[in-house]
């Protein structure tokens, strides 16, 4: 059965402990620890020993989306401190010197970007994967949908990097680049390619929701990914 869970940042920005707690009672078995902003990295590493991750069969961590104070070497050194078996989600724009990332190449997942940043399509990610051949791939369906609502870009990403697919991010990304709960349009689009996602690939929900909406967004996600119910209407 597919593992589902939330990014801690979607439920409690800057508070990993609360982000884990918010989803603990909902039967989820995947979680992504969010250190999306560079200043969250140290507090996140500090908080980890006090958090019980035993309920989760899949855990990933989202690296900072951009560097501000840390050098590239310092960032990679900090990321190395996360547990070895956790996938590390990395935005392609944070990588400048591929040699620096070689030490954790097997652990990182390159994520496709939203329309604002380079790394949005299979062609744009070619050079990254050519230089980090052992890196995994995190397919962000929300980003791919924003770039191309027909999901042609998502299909091309899977065709080219599907063998490296480690997990999927899901949400709706609005025109301001914000991760929001999925509307009918995004559910419909995601369900059209859901059959291309291997059943053992975890899904991490990035929709920013309050604690009271966790169950409904989880149900919406399961319906979009593991059921063809939306397609039957047409």
């Amino acid at each position, binding site marked *: 059965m597919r593992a589902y869970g939330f990014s801690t940042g979607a439920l409690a920005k800057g508070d990993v402990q609360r982000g884990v707690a918010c989803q603990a009672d909902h039967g989820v078995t995947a979680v992504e620890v969010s250190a999306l902003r560079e200043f969250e990295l140290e507090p996140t590493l500090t908080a980890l020993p006090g958090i019980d991750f035993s309920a989760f069969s899949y855990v990933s961590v989202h690296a900072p989306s951009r560097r501000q104070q840390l050098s590239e070497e310092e960032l990679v050194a900090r990321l190395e401190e996360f547990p070895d078996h956790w996938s590390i989600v990395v935005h392609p724009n944070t990588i400048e010197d591929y040699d620096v990332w070689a030490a954790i190449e097997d652990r990182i997942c390159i994520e496709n970007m939203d329309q604002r940043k380079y790394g949005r399509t299979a062609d744009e990610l070619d050079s990254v994967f050519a230089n980090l051949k052992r890196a995994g791939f995190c397919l962000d369906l929300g980003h791919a949908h924003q770039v*191309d*609502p027909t*999901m*042609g870009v998502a*299909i*091309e990403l899977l065709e080219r990097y599907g063998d490296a697919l480690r997990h999927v991010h899901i949400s709706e990304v609005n*025109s301001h680049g914000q991760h929001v709960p999925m509307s009918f349009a995004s559910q419909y689009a995601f369900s*059209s*390619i859901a059959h*291309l996602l291997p059943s053992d690939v975890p899904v991490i929900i990035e929709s920013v929701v309050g604690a009271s909406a966790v169950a409904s967004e989880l149900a919406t996600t399961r319906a979009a990914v593991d059921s063809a119910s939306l397609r039957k209407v047409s």
Partner: protein
Amino acid sequence: MQDTPFERLKLHCSADWRFITSARARTAELLSRLRALNLPQNQNTSLVIFGSAGRYELTADSDLDWSLLVDGPADPAHVELLHRLKQALHGIAAEPGPTFGGLTSSYELVHYIGGVRDTNLNLTIRMLLLLESRSVNNDIVHERVIRAILNRYITSSTSVAWHEAPVEIIPRFLLNDFVRYWRTITVDYAAKRWEQSDKKWGIRNAKLRLSRKLLFVTGLLMCFKFEAEHSDERDAFVSDMATFPQKLAGFLLKETKKSPIGVLSETLLLREADLARRILDPYDAFLAVLDDSDQRRELETLRFEEAANNELFARVRKIGRDFQAGVSALFSLSPFDGLIAEYGVF
């Protein structure tokens, strides 16, 4: 020298096609200049150029047809952006024609295909977006709209037979719209003669016979290309019919990124050199006329009653007829002859 199908065709045919070559270089230079201006932009808009610049056929007195393509929520700032773009582009080339220089919303292009709401203007912009457009900035928005249009054509083209794999991979709805557009251009040409008498009649006649016809040829080749040249990839496309529309749209998207001469060159490279000469020699001669300010002006001011005795018009008419003969020869070859008979007439 760039390794493009056109350059390879020149070598293959021992041709220089000087005016096509210089037009391509002039267009590339203009595009670089426009991109270097760092024009104001918005994340849901793309400045798109059409016309001779879109076809990579800029000549000396070409105007610059452009539109601000909007694909996102309506935003009052788009109008301010439009005004700033007009200011920034003023003086770079001749002002755009009446169809251009404004906002174009993606919504109508995607949702109004056929039917009463698909106006002449909507059809025109949509066809030109597919056949002769280049983005100056925000390629992602430009590409997103084209994918949406192509996807619409393909998903709306399904028939009972397509619950299984199609017998032939021909985007019929798209092909029909390319044909409709060509016929609309030809009918509008006659309409303009009726409404505007001789105003720019001569150059409109020349463009109809050549550059407008080339667009139609490009559309036909795009639609036939899969069956004519890529049918060995069929299994990869039809193995999962749920993703067939996106895959075919992706295939066609790549064709829209090529210039019309580029699309034609790829096909001609697979044929005898003589055929390419029959088509591109006259087209080069046409661009030579447009690149000469005096000859261009002569065509623009030519009166219909004078045409029969006008040496330039006689020459351009022969160029047009030679081009037509070459194109007809191309489409008389297999597999185009069968595809035209099956899909191009009805």
